């Protein structure tokens, strides 16, 4: 079954095929949510620190400068204010 597309290449939402596809997806989602069981909690694991090596003096200094700058700019407080308050 070929899916008809619009001139811009997107699926044509007016077609029967599109409507059927949407219904199938909805059914699949409903079935999945019904059968969904709570998965086991993923275990935390040790991480490395990307490009900045916090074990070196220079790496530590870079991280501290950045953390101080974030604190001075109220980075966390601003995000919380913008998203939740």
């Amino acid at each position, binding site marked *: 079954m070929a899916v008809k597309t619009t001139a811009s290449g997107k699926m044509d939402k007016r077609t029967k095929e599109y409507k059927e596809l949407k219904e199938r997806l909805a059914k699949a989602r409903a079935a999945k949510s019904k059968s969904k069981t709570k998965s086991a909690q993923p275990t*935390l694991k*040790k991480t490395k*620190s*990307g490009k900045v090596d916090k074990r070196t003096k220079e790496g530590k200094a870079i991280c*501290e400068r*950045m*953390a101080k700058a974030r604190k001075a700019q109220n980075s966390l*407080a601003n995000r919380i204010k913008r998203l939740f308050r």
Partner: protein
Amino acid sequence: MKTSPNTIASLLAACIWADGEYAEVERITADEVAEAFGIPEKEFDKYMTAASVEIKNLTPEAATTYAVKHAQKVEPEETGEVYQAIMQMMLCDGVLTAGEIYNLLAMAEALDIDRESAILMLCDMVKNEPELEVSFENDDSE
């Protein structure tokens, strides 16, 4: 905040456990969290130090159990704010790695935050913190 400072500190300590040590950069970030949540910095530092000592030598499974136990004590309406603090602590080195995303999603699950919202909040943070680097380097367990 209705959630106790001890609970918040314990969750942040779990992030520090994953990251190695309670270094100066983590202390600065903990101060920032305390300030954002209106908790006296000295009081919060005491909770942080105690929690860091408590969790320091735990196995990954025990650290996860510890995080989940404390995540359940977070007031449901404050999980998003606490998750923001966790992101701030987890990414205080200024680099976002695959391992950190794994741990962030584990913490989100412990807080009962759905994966989609957790990823959106992370995207929002990356968008608003231009100095934050994204690393594709392998950071499998040490």
